[in-house]
C-alpha cells in the first residue's frame, strides 16, 4: 500500500512497485484523484480514494504487508487549504495511518518518507549530520516541525510493533530535470534572492535515486533510519552560478518579510524552512545508507547538472558564454601587446 499517489513521488513509486514481479498487488491511497499527467503511470495500481482516517479499515481488510507512507507535503499549497491542510495531512494523517498500521497483523514493513529538515538549524550544529544527531532546538519552519512530529510517531510505532521493519528515509531536497518542487522553482527564477553574508552548503538527491532507494526498502529489508543525499556539497552561491542565474543577496530579515509578503500575495513559496536552509545549510553523512543498501545516489553536483539541463531558459551567464568572453579578452590583450611591441621595434629601428 502506497499513500500520496496523487503526487509526483508517490505515483512513480507505486508504478515501479507495480512493475516489479516480486510485488503481488499495489494499492494507492489518496484523498485526491491523481492528475491526468500521472494517471497513465498508475494503470496497474488499484486506487482507493480515501484519506488516512478511512485507511484504518483498509490496511487490516486488505491484509497489507508493507505500507509506504509518502503523503508528506513539504510546502503549504494555497489551492488546497494552505498550512492548516498541510499539517492535517502531515501530522494527523501520519498519526492515523500508523495507528491503523499498528492494528494490522499481517504488516511486515513500514517505509516513511522523512527529510533532512529533521536536524533543525542552529549555529552550533556540527557541519555534517549523522543519523544520531539530535536537533538542538525546535525548528521554526513548519515542514521541519511536522517532520519531527512524524518521526516521533514512527518511534512510538517501533516501540509497539518491534517485529515490523520500519525504515525512515531522511531525504535531502529532490532535484531532477522534470520534478517540480519549491526548490526547483526557486532555482528556475532568473534572479535568485539569497541571504546576505551567508553561503549555505546544500546537498540534493536525484529523484531517480530516491525512487531506487524507496523501491529497495520495500522489496528488501532495511530497518532503521537513513540519510539519503548525493555525495559532495554545493555552496548556494556556487549552485546559483552553475545554474547561470544571478543572485541578489538580501539581509535575512528583509528576505523573511519579502518572502512572507510574496506568500500572502500568492506568488513564490519561500518559507521559513527554506530561509533556515539558506542560512545554515545542511549536509548529511550517507555512509550508513551506502553500506546498508549497497547503492550510492549520484553526487549532488551530478543531480544539479541534470536539473540545469532541464532548465536552460532564463540563464544569464553560462559556462559557454563565460569561456567565449575569456577567449575574447585574452585575444584582445594579446593583440594590444603585439601592437605595442611592434611600435617599440619601429621606434628603436
Amino acid at each position: 500500500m502506497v499513500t500520496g499517489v496523487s503526487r509526483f513521488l508517490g505515483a512513480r513509486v507505486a508504478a515501479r512497485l507495480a512493475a516489479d514481479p516480486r510485488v503481488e498487488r499495489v494499492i494507492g491511497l489518496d484523498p485526491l484523484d491523481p492528475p491526468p499527467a500521472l494517471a497513465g503511470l498508475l494503470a496497474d495500481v488499484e486506487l482507493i480514494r480515501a484519506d488516512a482516517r478511512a485507511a484504518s479499515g483498509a490496511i487490516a481488510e486488505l491484509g497489507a504487508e508493507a505500507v509506504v507512507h509518502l503523503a508528506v507535503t513539504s510546502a503549504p499549497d494555497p489551492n488546497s487549504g494552505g498550512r492548516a491542510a498541510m499539517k492535517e495531512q502531515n501530522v494527523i494523517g501520519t498519526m492515523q495511518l500508523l495507528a491503523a498500521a499498528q492494528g494490522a497483523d499481517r504488516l511486515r514493513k513500514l517505509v516513511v518518507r522523512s527529510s533532512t529538515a529533521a536536524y533543525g538549524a542552529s549555529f552550533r550544529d556540527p557541519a555534517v549530520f549523522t543519523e544520531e544527531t539530535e536537533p538542538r532546538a525546535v525548528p521554526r519552519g513548519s515542514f521541519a516541525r511536522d517532520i519531527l512530529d512524524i518521526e516521533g510517531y514512527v518511534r512510538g510505532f517501533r516501540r509497539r510493533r518491534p517485529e515490523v521493519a520500519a525504515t525512515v528515509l531522511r531525504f535531502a531536497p529532490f532535484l531532477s530535470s522534470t520534478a517540480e518542487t519549491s526548490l526547483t522553482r526557486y532555482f528556475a527564477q532568473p534572479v535568485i534572492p539569497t541571504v546576505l553574508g551567508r553561503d549555505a552548503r546544500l546537498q540534493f538527491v536525484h529523484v531517480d535515486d530516491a525512487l531506487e532507494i524507496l523501491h529497495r526498502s520495500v522489496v528488501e529489508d532495511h530497518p532503521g533510519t537513513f540519510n539519503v543525499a548525493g555525495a559532495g556539497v554545493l555552496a548556494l552561491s556556487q549552485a546559483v552560478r552553475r545554474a547561470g542565474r544571478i543572485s541578489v543577496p538580501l539581509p535575512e530579515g528583509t528576505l523573511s518579510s519579502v518572502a512572507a509578503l510574496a506568500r500572502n500575495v500568492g506568488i513564490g513559496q519561500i518559507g521559513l524552512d527554506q530561509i533556515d536552509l539558506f542560512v545554515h545549510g545542511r549536509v548529511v553523512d550517507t555512509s550508513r545508507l551506502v553500506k546498508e543498501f549497497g547503492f550510492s545516489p549520484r553526487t549532488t553536483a551530478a543531480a544539479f547538472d541534470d536539473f540545469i539541463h532541464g532548465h536552460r531558459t532564463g540563464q544569464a551567464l553560462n559556462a559557454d558564454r563565460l569561456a567565449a568572453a575569456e577567449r575574447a579578452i585574452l585575444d584582445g590583450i594579446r593583440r594590444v601587446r603585439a601592437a605595442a611591441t611592434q611600435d617599440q621595434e619601429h621606434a628603436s629601428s
Partner: protein
Amino acid sequence: MTQDEYHAALPGHADFELPAARAPKPLNGNRPGRRRVLPAANGPAPAQVEAAAPEPDRQRDPVDVWDQRVAAGLAFLRRRLAGAYEVDEFGFDAELTDAVFQPMLKVLYRDWFRTEVFGVENVPDTGGGLIVGNHSGTVALDALMLTVALRDQHPSDRHLRLLGADLVFRLPVLSELARKSGATVACNPDAERLMSEGELVGVFPEGFKGIGKRFSDRYKLQRFGRGGFVSAALRTGTPIVPVAIVGAEEIYPILADLKPLARLLGMPYFPVTPTFPWLGPLGLVPLPSKWLIEFCPPIPTAHLTEYADDPMVVYNLADQVRETIQATLHTLLEKRPDPFGL
C-alpha cells in the same frame, strides 16, 4: 603551472633563465599574485616584462610569463563565475583560499609581523594532527597567521582547519568567510570527522578567555576549558602538536575591558586599547610586533584510544600540553627581547 615548472619545460635555455624569472621577488616584496595581474595587463605589463628580464632575447619569447599570468587570472575568474570549483562538506573552498585569502594574509604575516617559524618539522607530513596553540591578541589574528605559517613553511604545504567559536558562525559575512577558509564550529563531531579524514586541525582551548585578557596578563596561559580537544584527539588516535605563538599579545594591547558595553552588544568583551576606540577605524590597525611561532614535538595518542572518556587521562594530557606551551612561550620570549624589534 608554476613559473619554475614553466621554465623547466622550456627547451634549451631553461637553466640560465631561472634567475631572471626570480628577479621580481626581492624587487617589490614578492606579490606576484593573480590579483595584480588584471590592472597591470593593459598598460604597464610590457614594461614590467623588460624590468624582470634584462636579456634582450627574453622579450621575443613567443610565450612569456605575463601572458601566462593573464591567462591564468582570466581562467580563475571564469571558473569562479561559472561555479566550476569544489567545496568540501565543511564549506572549505581550497581554490579561493589559496588564490585570495592566503596572499592577503601573507602580506601581514611577512611584511607587517615579520614572522619566524621554528620546528615546522614537528607537524606531520601526512595524516591527521591536532595543533593546539595559545590564544591572544583581541582579534583571532594568531589563528590566521598560523594557517599562513603552515601553508607557507610546511614542506607539504598543509592547510590548517581551524575550529572557531559559535559566535563566529552566528555572524553573517564572517561565518561565510570562516567556512570558505576551512574553519568549522568547535564541536567534537566536526573535530573527529576532520581528524579521521587526515586533516590538520587547529584549536585554541583558551577561547575568549585567551584573546580577551588584559595586556598585564600577557603570555600567561588561561584555563584550558574542559579538555574536549584532548578527548577528540584520543578517540581518533591523532597526535597533538602544541604550538607557542609569541607576538600576538602586542598587536592590540587591552588596557581595560568595558563589561557593561560588551554585554549590551552581545560580545564576550569590549576592549580598550591605546588606539581603540579613540582613533576610530585607525585603531583597528594592529601594532607591528615581531612574531615567533614554534611547533613543539608531537604527543602521540594512538595508544590511549580507550581512555578517551577517562577524565583523569584527558585532564592530565591537557595539562601536559598547557605546560609545554607555557614553557615554550618563555624560551621564545627570551629570544625576542624587544617586542617591536626586527
